[in-house]
């Protein structure tokens, strides 16, 4: 497979996912205009080094194993779809979405997950009015950086203490989801709180997310465990691709 074809698969797979979304998405992404310019710029700066490291890792691993880009393309499409797929939560009477970055991180590593999350968030901000261009940095930090590194870290620790891989994948999905929403709460409270009320505002926003996100995080845990099991049993060769330290 030539480099052009691999690139085409990786990028167009994400575009294909747009087909599945004939409507406005309902999500945790921070919308356009909510963050003041200073905070928006700050979160871009926080996300930038992770993005650069992820792109470097993607280049190295793709050079070592050309098939890897196809897997990244597929995982990117999955993250795109999952991160704007509204799921009704009956206990709360509202909708939210999983993130998919916990699962992605244990499949392709947290660094490259930041890259696929940035692609997904950029497409959503540009074409689906989901998130925003000015808030891209903040959304990338919460969903891409924190979601990916937390999910991957939990998976690694769980495996180190000999927790079965199915349960480890469940925990990665669960913690990654909850971590993403906790970070969004922090970003909102940091930018919007006045007169030193940041701590209390953070807790209030976190509590507001909880009725929807607690069950959805559990759902994401099952989703991650199921998808990981499926790939592990049906496509074990994908698990055998060269890995950087820290990935599954």
């Amino acid at each position, binding site marked *: 497979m030539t480099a052009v074809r691999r690139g085409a698969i990786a990028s167009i797979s994400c575009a294909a996912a747009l087909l599945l979304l004939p409507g406005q998405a309902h999500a945790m992404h921070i919308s356009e205009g909510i963050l003041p310019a200073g905070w928006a710029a700050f979160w871009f700066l926080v996300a930038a080094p992770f993005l650069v490291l992820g792109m470097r890792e993607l280049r190295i691993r793709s050079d070592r194993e050309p098939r890897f880009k196809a897997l990244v*393309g597929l995982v990117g499409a999955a993250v795109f779809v999952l991160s704007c797929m509204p799921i009704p939560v009956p206990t709360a009477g509202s909708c939210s979405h999983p993130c998919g970055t916990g699962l992605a991180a244990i499949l392709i590593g947290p660094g490259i997950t930041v890259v696929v999350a940035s692609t997904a968030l950029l497409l959503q901000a540009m074409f689906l009015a989901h998130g925003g261009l000015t808030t891209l940095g903040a959304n990338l930090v919460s969903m891409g950086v924190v979601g990916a590194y937390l999910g991957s870290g939990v998976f690694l620790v769980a495996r180190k203490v000999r927790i079965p891989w199915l349960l480890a994948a469940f925990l990665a999905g669960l913690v990654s989801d909850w971590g993403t929403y906790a970070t969004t709460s922090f970003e909102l409270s940091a930018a919007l709180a006045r007169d030193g009320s940041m701590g209390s505002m953070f807790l209030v926003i976190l509590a507001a997310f909880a009725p929807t996100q607690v069950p959805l995080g559990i759902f994401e845990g099952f989703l991650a465990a199921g998808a990981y099991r499926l790939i592990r049993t049906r496509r074990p060769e994908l698990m055998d691709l060269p890995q950087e330290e820290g990935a599954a």
Partner: protein
Amino acid sequence: MRAAIVVTVLAALALAFVSVSGNCHARWEGVDETVVKKFATAAGRPPRAPYINTDQGDILLFVFLLAGIAGGFAGGYFFRELFPRKGRSEKVKELRVRQ
């Protein structure tokens, strides 16, 4: 094991159905409305319209059409590279030999 999974999934679906039908006054808004927008508006920073607004007339359908054409073509053209036939991959064979 499989039966347990099926029963669990059916029970979860039944519970969800009962909860949804009982929660008929819910508006099913996303948390971007019920949480993010609510707190941002209260703090005096309501969300603004997106810079690229595709939700005008049939523009969004046009975007879906373009993405569908591109994605469908790429997915079909590279189908065998993305999803090789079972047992055809050399790597799979090697793994099975090793097992």
